């Protein structure tokens, strides 16, 4: 197959980094959709702009990424979702936010606009919202003995809000349909016109559990757009933070998944490891979740010399305790009984949706943004991306376990090689129009940030959470499982509501 760039015919936009952006006509757009549908490319994101729609595509074989743009002078564009289902929800979001219509989209329902805003199309041609809110039609289910269980938006645990509509036959789930958008905060509208500082803080609050990864992807996009070289020490400190964030979240998840199978001992023990990780983060970077620690141009502050010993002590403790917990997980038959063969996600669906993180890797998809497109310092560090094929809750737990081990090895290398020197360079956002795309591997998968800088401020910024491509797969994975296993399946996916709803 020809490389990605050679196959797309379009007008190349100057000042878009690090990958090219091409403006295509509707035929070129349809061609891109057909390439996605045929499985030649993977969809990385699809988002609106003033009078245009962009999509980022990845050619895994050629290791190339491109952004393709179609102009919509009449407020319409050919639906990608009509050929390639992973685009459907993204296109519904474009329609809600920009008023641009995906022609022939299989889903004409609103997605983020639940009918409570004062305005319609807040990022496009704004108009007053209609006074009455239309009823939301869930997909029909027909059959004898079927019943519906509506859950949410307010859930029973300490978790984010969203609505799940189960249709069950006895105990077995026949269909799950999600309805999200409840925590839509209008982050992309707040980004428009924001200074780099404010925009970086917003990016870091898109999904609090991935604040480092978001800040990193945002910084990558700014640095690509402005062609800035980040000091080596900052690059290593960023990776240290990213791996600490991954550790903390994986500890939390492994414990919480076991807790949802009523095995609270793991939850308690993993909670201890998570707390210790957060305390190390607090003492090194001044914040338990390391919010606002990664900034465009570097990191906010140098943690000083004491940090190395602090993190090394954490590693030692984790290496002492974690293997015992892994053994406990592996040898507890009653726990395995709940996680093995539960919530199976088929490999071809994971590939079709370009599922990242543990969702993709537990179903045979090895993609990791640290490897592809890759970013420093990971190109100089030795690590593996663990992949399993079973696709069940158990496999998603094992990916996390193996990733904890990889993160420990990565942090070892980072501490050993941590260079001296400055930790930040000033970025002068001159008035030029510059565009950048950035990616970072969060604990749940790849975060993508695209932005246009104009007049020294952010003109447009889109943040794509890995959950966009994982939420729909949860609907598929739960099919045929019992309702009581839903919390377990849901936790093993641990998708972000806030990151998705924006």
């Amino acid at each position, binding site marked *: 197959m020809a490389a990605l760039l050679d196959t797309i015919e379009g007008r190349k936009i100057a000042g878009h980094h690090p990958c090219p952006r091409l403006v295509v006509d509707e035929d070129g757009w349809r061609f891109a959709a057909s390439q996605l549908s045929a499985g030649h490319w993977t969809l990385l994101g699809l988002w609106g702009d003033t009078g245009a729609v962009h999509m980022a595509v990845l050619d895994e074989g050629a290791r190339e990424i491109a952004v393709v743009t179609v102009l919509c002078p009449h407020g319409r564009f050919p639906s990608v979702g009509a050929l390639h289902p992973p685009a459907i929800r993204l296109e519904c979001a474009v329609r809600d936010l920009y008023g641009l219509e995906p022609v022939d989209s299989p889903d004409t329902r609103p997605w983020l606009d639940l009918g409570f805003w004062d305005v319609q199309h807040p990022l496009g041609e704004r108009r007053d919202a209609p006074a009455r809110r239309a009823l939301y039609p869930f997909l029909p289910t027909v059959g004898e003995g079927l019943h519906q269980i509506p859950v949410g938006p307010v859930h029973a645990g300490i978790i984010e809000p969203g609505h799940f509509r189960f249709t069950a036959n006895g105990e077995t789930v026949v269909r799950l349909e999600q309805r999200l958008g409840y925590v839509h*905060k209008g982050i992309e509208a707040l980004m428009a016109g924001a200074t780099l500082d404010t925009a970086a803080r917003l990016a870091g*609050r898109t999904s609090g559990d991935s604040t480092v990864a978001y800040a990193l992807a945002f910084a990558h996009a700014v640095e690509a757009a402005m062609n800035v070289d980040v000091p080596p020490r900052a690059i290593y400190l960023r990776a240290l933070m990213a791996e600490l964030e991954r550790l903390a979240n994986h500890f939390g998840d492994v414990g919480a998944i076991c807790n949802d199978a009523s095995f609270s001992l793991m939850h308690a023990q993993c909670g201890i490891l998570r707390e210790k990780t957060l305390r190390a983060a607090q003492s090194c970077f001044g914040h338990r979740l390391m919010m606002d620690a990664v900034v465009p141009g570097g990191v906010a502050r140098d943690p000083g010399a004491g940090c190395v010993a602090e993190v090394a002590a954490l590693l030692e403790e984790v290496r002492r305790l974690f293997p015992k917990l892994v053994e406990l997980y592996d040898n507890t038959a009653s726990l395995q009984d709940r996680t093995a063969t539960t919530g199976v996600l088929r490999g071809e669906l994971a590939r079709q949706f370009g599922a990242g993180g543990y969702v993709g890797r537990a179903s045979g998809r090895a993609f990791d943004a640290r490897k592809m497109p890759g970013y420093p310092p990971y190109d100089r560090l030795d690590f593996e991306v663990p992949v399993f094929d079973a696709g069940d809750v158990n496999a998603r737990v094992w990916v996390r376990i193996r990733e904890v081990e990889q993160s420990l090895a990565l942090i070892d290398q980072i501490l050993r090689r941590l260079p001296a020197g400055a930790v930040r360079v000033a970025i002068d956002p001159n008035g030029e129009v510059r565009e950048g795309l950035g990616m970072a591997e969060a604990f749940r998968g790849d975060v993508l940030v695209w932005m246009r800088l104009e007049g020294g401020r952010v003109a447009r910024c889109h943040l794509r959470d890995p959950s966009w491509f994982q939420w729909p797969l949860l609907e598929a994975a739960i099919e045929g499982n019992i309702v009581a296993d839903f919390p377990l399946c849901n936790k093993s996916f641990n998708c972000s509501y806030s990151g998705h709803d924006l």
Partner: protein
Amino acid sequence: MRRILFDSLMRRPLTEAAPVKDEEMLAELGASVERAARRRLGRSLSIREVDPGSCNGCELEIHALNNAFYDLERFGLHFVASPRHADVLLVTGPVTRNMREALERTYNATPDPKWVVAVGDCAVDGGIFSGSYAVIGGVSGVVPVDLHIRGCPPRPTQLLKGLLTLLEA
């Protein structure tokens, strides 16, 4: 499993001493907590957490209250699954327009006497998200708030301090 349980038995507990209550928070609470209601409920409070728009950072730290270091339940405080079982609503984040009705309904489903604790900087006035078409603002714009615990997100010790202040006001 036995080894882990045995190790835990032999080790000194990880749980830390309770933080002292906060004078500033006491002042905010002074007017809202009736002594009669307090006597009736004793020292035990059931908490229902509601997220009407948070970035999920506050949720992470609220979760931490249940870990071995903070051990919320030793104070008689515990999280419940339904607002109908709750004495306290712990509300995080700015309130989005899409969650307003759900928050109101959750509040109305909580029996009296009840208290609302708004958690995090966003819950005060919408924080970094204020001014958005999709956000109403702070929690007090939708339901009456008895206590604010600031922070982005507040650390578990700050949360604990706030909740203990509520308990002992």
